[in-house]
């Protein structure tokens, strides 16, 4: 288990403020956030590689905040892998064994298991400069796991890889997590990585933890404007609440429930907003007539912006429905959404 309590770090240009995280033994925890949020600094602080201003870092019930990095049992794999360029693949992998009391048999067993699992046996005698990105990464993983760390920190392990390999690497990481039994803490700014790997996750911005919880929670029930925006809840409105209704500008929206804390924002995922040419009767409690004010190609989808009074809603539709509905700028359209799709915070 790894836990931080009111961790504060102050480096030039980077600050972490009161970081409280709790990661269970053997969990795959994903830390998300935009570039510059301080994710890497947090990893380095946990590993003892940057000085901590105040707070505690507890691993296995022991405060390690004052211990040097070599005494913490935390391995780290950097985005650029940081393999030792003057050592062969094998020497890189066995590097950590110089400083551990591991008997020869056990060391051999571990080596052959990792080489086998990561499929890098054939690279053994090569130097890092002659390896591809994927190979470098697998060697870096093997080196980090060779010392049987309690916690493995992964700093954006997927971002430097070709998109085609990401799926493979994700499943590789999942397997490795299971076989090693270590607690994994991975940093990423990619949502898909987090969705496929994380048991628990946290979102960070500007040196602060915005939200922690399951991916489901973060994805469906963001608790701040930043997180809502980060997870792609593109319809985000400041609302006034009364009873089971919320009002944004001059639109009255039915929530189907009386919200607990009745102030702040409502948020709706763009894929939860249905676009139609005609008004239609359905179970959806909220339906408004508006004008299409923008059509944007988003690759697999089109984002349609519909203006209703003073408010602009964003909806995602497929290319097929775009032509079927004859949606283009300036035409009239209806938007509808269920009250269950409305999240408020």
């Amino acid at each position: 288990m790894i836990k931080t309590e009111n961790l504060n770090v102050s480096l030039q240009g980077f600050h972490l403020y009161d970081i409280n995280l709790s990661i269970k033994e053997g969990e795959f925890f994903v830390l998300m956030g935009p570039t510059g949020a301080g994710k890497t600094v947090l990893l380095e602080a946990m590993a003892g590689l940057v000085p901590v201003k105040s707070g505690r870092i507890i691993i296995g019930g022991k405060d390690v905040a004052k211990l040097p990095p070599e005494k913490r049992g935390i391995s780290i794999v950097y985005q650029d892998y940081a393999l030792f360029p003057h050592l062969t693949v094998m020497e890189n992998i066995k590097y950590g064994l110089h400083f551990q009391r591991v008997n020869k048999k056990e060391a051999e067993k571990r080596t052959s298991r990792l080489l086998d699992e990561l499929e890098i046996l054939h690279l053994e005698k090569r130097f890092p400069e002659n390896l591809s990105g994927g190979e470098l990464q697998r060697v870096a993983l093997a080196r980090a796991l060779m010392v049987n760390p309690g916690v493995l920190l992964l700093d954006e392990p997927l971002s430097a890889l070709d998109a085609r390999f990401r799926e493979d690497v994700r499943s590789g990481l999942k397997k490795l997590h299971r076989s090693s039994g270590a607690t994994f803490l991975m940093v990423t700014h990619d949502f898909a990585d987090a969705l496929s790997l994380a048991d628990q996750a946290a979102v960070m911005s500007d040196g602060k933890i915005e939200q922690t919880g399951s991916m489901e929670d973060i994805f469906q029930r963001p608790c701040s404007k930043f997180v809502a925006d980060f997870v792609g809840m593109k319809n985000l409105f400041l609302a006034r609440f009364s009873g089971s209704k919320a009002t944004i500008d001059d639109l009255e929206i039915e929530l189907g429930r009386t919200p607990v804390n009745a102030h702040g924002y409502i948020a709706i995922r763009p894929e939860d907003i249905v676009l139609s040419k005609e008004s239609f009767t359905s179970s959806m409690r909220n339906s408004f007539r508006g004008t299409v004010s923008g059509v944007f190609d988003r690759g697999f989808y089109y984002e349609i912006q519909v203006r209703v009074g003073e408010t602009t809603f964003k909806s995602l539709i497929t290319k097929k429905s775009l032509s079927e509905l004859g949606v283009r700028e300036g035409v009239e359209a209806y938007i509808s959404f269920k009250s269950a799709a409305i999240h408020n915070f």
Partner: protein
Amino acid sequence: MTKREPFFWITISCGIVIMAFILLPLIEMMTAPSLSMLKETIKDKDVLRSIWLSIYTAGLAALISFVFGTPLAYLLARSDFRGKRLVESIIDLPIVIPHPVVGIAILSIAGRNYWLGQIFSELGIRIMGSVTGIVTVLTFVGMPFYINAVKDGFEGISPRLEKVSRSLGASMFSTFSRITFPLAWRSMLVGIIMCSARAISEFGAVVIVAYHPMIAPVMIYERFEAYGLKYSQPVAVWLVFICLSLFLILRILTTPSREKVA
């Protein structure tokens, strides 16, 4: 083929002028003395002694720079602190100070009316007119070249390599000896060569602190003053020849021989 712009010809001709400017005097000097004269000069005990003195005092200066300069270079490469710029400018000072001024400055702290000079004299250390004085001066002028070269070398090594090493269980010392040093020693070698090359060439400061024992540049100057150009040239040729060979050997000995598996 397109017609070359006049600017192209300007760059080429300037280049030729500079090459000639550097090479002509050197080639003329190196080829002026006859072989028999060179032979005679190298048999001269005084010449040999002064060239040897030049080489080993410069070598000592480089060694001292290595011992004291390496940790400082590492500090400057790895950490940011208030006044770092100031420290860096101070390190560069010996490069910009006129050479005789260096000699005078060093003598002024070694004199009897300065506390350090008193301590030295009580310990029996003499700066004026001694090998110790020569080494002191050469270290003073050579050190910046060592520190700057090695600092650049350390800066070229990703701090992440050291961080990974620490996280894998290596102490600071093990990390330095297993990771940082093996990756930086080539720049240390460059630093040693730069430092000793600079030290060997020093004349102005040495001549003030120690005319005797005579290092090679002082001897070249003395022969020029007393007997003229013709007698100073062979010593100069030998000094250049021996220094270049030493640096070349050092380079060859340390080129990587390891074959990397492709």
